[in-house]
């Protein structure tokens, strides 16, 4: 190593150190440049079409089973029975969000657009049971029994048009 390279090395060391220190000083002194987000207190602004947890609006759901069929992970399970007015009534609609891979296929196929991605992303839990989202609050067997009663009553009403009173008790049950 000649003297020229030797001195060159020294100059290079000084220059590069100065350069680096200028950059770090710029970052250190600029108060605006802070990328840390204080998470529980501050939140990200989520994009409009963010794929968070799935949410099904059971009032508009027509129980068509499209989401169940299209789901690659088999995470949606649906039970429905035909009601007195020939429409399907949901007995249970569960999404195992622990299995869901947020592909969005079920949302794509949903005919009444009742199944949607919400903006939720916080759902830490201690066991897998808690990761199953249940959209029908009542027990499935209860719903089935109630619908079966309504169907039977409607059938009885159709046979004898004079009896027109059996509806109220059924409605009271729904409210519970």
């Amino acid at each position, binding site marked *: 190593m000649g003297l020229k390279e030797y001195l060159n*090395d*020294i100059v290079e060391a000084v220059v590069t*150190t100065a350069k*680096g*220190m200028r*950059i*770090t*000083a710029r*970052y*250190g*002194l600029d108060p605006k*440049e*802070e*990328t*840390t987000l*204080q998470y529980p207190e501050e939140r990200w602004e989520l994009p409009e079409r963010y794929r968070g947890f799935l949410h099904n609006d059971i009032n508009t759901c027509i129980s068509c089973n499209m989401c169940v069929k299209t789901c690659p992970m088999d995470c949606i399970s649906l039970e429905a029975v035909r009601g007195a007015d020939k429409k399907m009534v949901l007995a249970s609609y569960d999404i195992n969000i622990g299995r869901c891979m947020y592909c969005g296929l079920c949302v794509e196929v949903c005919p009444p657009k009742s199944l949607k991605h919400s903006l939720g992303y916080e759902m830490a839990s201690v066991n897998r049971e808690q990761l199953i989202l249940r959209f029908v609050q009542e027990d499935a067997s209860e719903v089935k029994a109630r619908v079966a009663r309504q169907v039977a009553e409607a059938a009885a009403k159709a046979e004898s048009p004079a009896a027109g009173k059996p509806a109220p008790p059924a409605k009271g049950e729904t409210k519970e």
Partner: protein
Amino acid sequence: MEALAISLIKAVPFLGAVPVWAVALVLMVAVAAVVLAFALTFEGVGSLVLRKVAGDIQVRIGPNRVGPNGVLQFLADGVKLILKEDLTPASADRPLFKMAPYFVFVGSFAGFVVVPFGVGLIAADLNIGVYYVMAVSSLVVIGILLAGWSSNNKWALLGGMRGAAQIISYEIPVGLALIPAVMIAGSLSLQDIVRSQGGLWGIFGWNLFHNPFTFFSFFLYFTAAQAETNQTPFDLPEAESELVSGYNVEYSGIRFGYFFLAEFGDMFVVAALTTALFLGGWNIPFFHAETLPWIWGNLLSLGVFLGKAFTIVLIMMWVRWTLPRIRVDQLMRLSWKYLIPLTFFNLLGVSLWLLVFNGKGIPAMIASLFG
């Protein structure tokens, strides 16, 4: 210390019956306690500032949970270190393992003895001050090597070996870079060196501006000292990305705390030496600190000294978060092929300068030119 004890006995009437050595002993313990309290406070606050500076430079926030804006973080850290279990590995060499942190801590804390905090604020104005600091800071090598060896862990051993090689190599440029200041003052006592930089020129009395060679000497010393205290561009003994944590990998609890304190203690001693030897120490610009009333002179000079020393510490942290760690062979090359020849060259230059210009610096010459 004995002179202080005698004057104290003369000043306070009921101390007349107490022997001088007893008063001197009590005074020594008191001074040591004050210096230790200062050192521990500096180390605590220093660690917080280090993390905050790191946060700023790396575009993040740093500790901000304990206390307002995180200012009590160092207390939480200290409590954690004290409460943690002090583990000793089963296959470690127990006595050596337990002894090592004390060597490191003593080596770093003993340097505080000769730090000239102010006009009269120095624990002991040894007439071999600079030599003493060089000597006691070498004690750290023994501690690091002991810690690395006795842990019986490959990372620790590698870290300890690297530490020993590095600190011994860099002691030579550190010593050689300090000699110009000693030559200008004609004394090894730190107080004498600081006094030699006084005068009414303000900052131009500093050794930094004495002549071009001392100017370079300052940077050479700063670089070598950064390496000697295992600061980041040269933190090979504890390189966390390759050696996990280096020589202190097996330590936990308060024994790890000692290593941690020693690191920050070293940092302050180096900053204090830089201040005293090159940046005019406690000299107040445009004033004679020694002609002021005792209390004001001491307070002002203490403030000036700490201001300069803390600025140097901040610059060390700044360098620490700027440069990446260099390789072992690069480290050795930097010391033996670059720093040592350059410091020798500087030493020669300063010697010739003092011989040719009869000990006058450039600012003194310019001042005499204008009368």
